[in-house]
């Protein structure tokens, strides 16, 4: 998050000079959270697809302009970093138009007006107005305008990852208040009538929300024209009725078991399409890197050895999450823009490379010198000796620790959820957000990770037995 904030301050903007930039691009890329009901969420009543007020307004704008709309889901605190990194063209996520933001971004005219409310637990009567927030703990997305409101009122901010998390830590009694827009709170209450929370007060602040784009993007005239038409022809009202009339009776909530059953396949698909390929591709590339680094580390060339040492030191000395963010959010600032999946592959491969290099190096060193000499006396050169004599033996030593690396990698791929890869964990988050069924969905995701790792452990022991056929027992 810190990194994302750093990137924000160091941003540069590109200028688009064409007359109708959106139309000429033929596509409008829209960044949105996907976990902020009723504005941007995966709607269970629409088969779990991305929907919500902001999402549908963005779709309608695309229709008016005659372009395709592509949604990119990202967490709120990375959303401006991703916008700066040109991952998408606009943000449609109830972005409140403030003076500070206007200084950094282009805004369309507002398409929604909201009123802030202060939410507390039902049994808490200590808060009657904004002034009572002084000294209270508030759960907020740290970069949101609601966090700003709470901070100004003297509350301590506990950082969370969006409204869904904020409400659930309030339910659990881990914070005192949540400040957010009234409609998302009402929507939550309609969906969860038994939740132990209430609207304690209004903030008396009305705010306007619009699309945010990079400064000088030139997109605003087209956006505004489309919004005007949507307002005139009643589309905005229609979308707003669909999502924001929270008093309307909604479809009865599904049972937890039904929810799990309905999502078994979507979660499995995310695992099969994203988590597993991400793991396998990164591991294979990582091993190639690791072998090269291990050999460099073992070489008699001082420069090579030191480069390898430096690489291993950097990879092992920095958090994987930071490495992911550097590849995804920081590289675009020096003109290297990589799509989410390949970016994840790069970060994970480099990470595996650093860790596995030391495993491979020590495995190679565990092979007696006599084996190298015997290979030399039968005429094998360095590469031949390595390939035919040393590595086959070293692999027996390296397989158990490398299997650990692989199994860790399976679980580490969940971090890719932070850089827009809709893998297993992110999919579980998407489903959990509107339904608040965290236990059920994260439990299902955990079960899937466990199953994948069980299969890998099984494969590991079979492979080890095969490699041990030439060892005395």
């Amino acid at each position, binding site marked *: 998050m810190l990194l994302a904030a750093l990137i924000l301050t160091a941003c540069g903007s590109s200028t688009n000079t064409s007359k109708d930039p959106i139309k000429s691009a033929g596509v409008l890329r829209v960044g949105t959270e996907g976990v902020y009901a009723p504005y941007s969420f995966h709607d269970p009543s629409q088969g779990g697809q991305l929907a919500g007020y902001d999402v549908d307004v963005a779709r309608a704008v695309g229709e008016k302009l005659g372009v395709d709309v592509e949604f990119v889901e990202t967490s709120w605190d990375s959303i401006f970093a991703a916008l700066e990194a040109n991952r998408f063209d606009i943000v449609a996520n109830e972005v409140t138009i403030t003076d500070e933001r206007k200084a950094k971004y282009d805004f369309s005219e507002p398409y929604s007006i909201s009123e802030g409310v202060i939410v507390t637990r039902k049994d808490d009567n200590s808060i009657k107005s904004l002034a009572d927030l002084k000294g209270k703990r508030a759960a907020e997305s740290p970069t949101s305008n609601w966090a700003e409101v709470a901070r100004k009122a003297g509350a301590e901010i506990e950082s969370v990852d969006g409204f869904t998390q904020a409400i659930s830590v309030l339910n659990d009694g881990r914070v005192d208040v949540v400040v957010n827009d009234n409609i998302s709170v009402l929507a939550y209450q309609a969906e969860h009538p038994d939740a132990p929370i209430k609207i304690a007060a209004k903030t008396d602040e009305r705010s306007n929300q619009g699309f945010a784009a990079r400064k000088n993007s030139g997109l605003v005239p087209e956006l505004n024209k489309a919004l005007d038409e949507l307002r005139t022809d009643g589309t905005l009202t229609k979308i707003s009725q669909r999502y924001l009339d929270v008093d309307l009776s909604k479809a009865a909530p599904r049972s937890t078991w039904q929810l799990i059953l309905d999502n078994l396949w979507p979660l499995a698909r995310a695992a099969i399409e994203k988590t597993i390929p991400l793991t396998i591709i990164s591991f294979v590339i990582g091993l190639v890197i690791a072998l090269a680094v291990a050999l460099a580390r073992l070489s008699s060339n001082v420069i090579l050895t030191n480069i390898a040492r430096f690489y291993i030191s950097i990879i092992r000395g920095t958090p994987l999450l930071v490495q992911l963010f550097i590849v995804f959010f920081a590289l675009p600032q020096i003109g290297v823009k990589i799509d989410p999946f390949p970016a994840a592959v790069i970060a994970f491969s480099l990470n595996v490379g650093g860790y596995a290099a030391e495993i491979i190096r020590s495995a190679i060193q565990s092979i007696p010198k*006599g084996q190298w*000499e*015997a290979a030399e006396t039968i*005429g094998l050169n360095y590469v031949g000796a390595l390939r*035919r004599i040393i590595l086959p*033996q070293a692999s*027996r030593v390296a397989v158990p620790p490398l299997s650990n690396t692989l199994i860790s990698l399976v679980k580490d791929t969940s971090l890719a959820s932070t850089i827009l890869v809709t893998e297993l964990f992110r999919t579980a988050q998407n489903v959990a957000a509107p339904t608040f069924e965290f236990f059920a969905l994260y439990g299902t995701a955990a079960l899937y990770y466990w199953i994948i790792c069980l299969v890998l452990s099984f494969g590991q022991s079979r492979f080890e037995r095969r490699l041990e056929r*030439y060892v*005395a027992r």
Partner: protein
Amino acid sequence: MTENRVVAEGVHKAFGDNKVLKGVSFTVEQGTATTIIGPSGSGKTTLLRTLNALDRADAGVIRVDDVEIDFSTPTPKSEVRRFQSRSGFVFQGHNLFPHKTVLQNIIEGPVFVQKRPKEEAESEALELLNQVGLAEKRDQYPYQLSGGQQQRVGIARALALKPKLVLFDEPTSALDPELVGEVLSVIKDLAVEGWTLVIVTHEIQFARQVSNQVLFTDQGIILERGTPEEVIGNPKEERTRQFLDRILNPL
């Protein structure tokens, strides 16, 4: 007059400050067996290893068959490889490849280095295994063999490359006493067949029986060189006598 298969002139080798070989010169005639004896630390194993460039001499000229290298000047890698390809090497601790079967150990060089057809290499390997009495072990892994059998496979592996010279580094030192005989008798057969052999050994009786020439090394030089009768039977140097006395009458 028979031709020299090995000519070594002024070979020097040091490991750091430790001067192991201090100007060693000798020749080995084609089709003869030469044994190197001497106290431990006298440089005999290092001398053997310089003949295969497993240890590169610091100075001196060594010719093996048709390849001559002056080690005081830089030599291209390919030339060193050519030099190495002229000799086979049998290690004290066999150094068989544990992940390969007996047969795979023997054909590794012929097939993957000399690029000969696998079938041809295999049938030659089987002949060699017959010769060392291990044909029935062809598909076993090294760990399934006794020490003497492992060493005999090591010999077959060295011979499979059809070297002009076979080097033995204390081939029986790591063996249990009852296994020494089977290995020595294989080596003896090779001498009879006319292979050119250089053997570092502590087996004085064996050296006496098998060799045409004996080199006695001491403190990095060849102190005495001659026929077994001369060097072992009637040593001229006091140090040779002391050494032989210690070996032959250890108590």
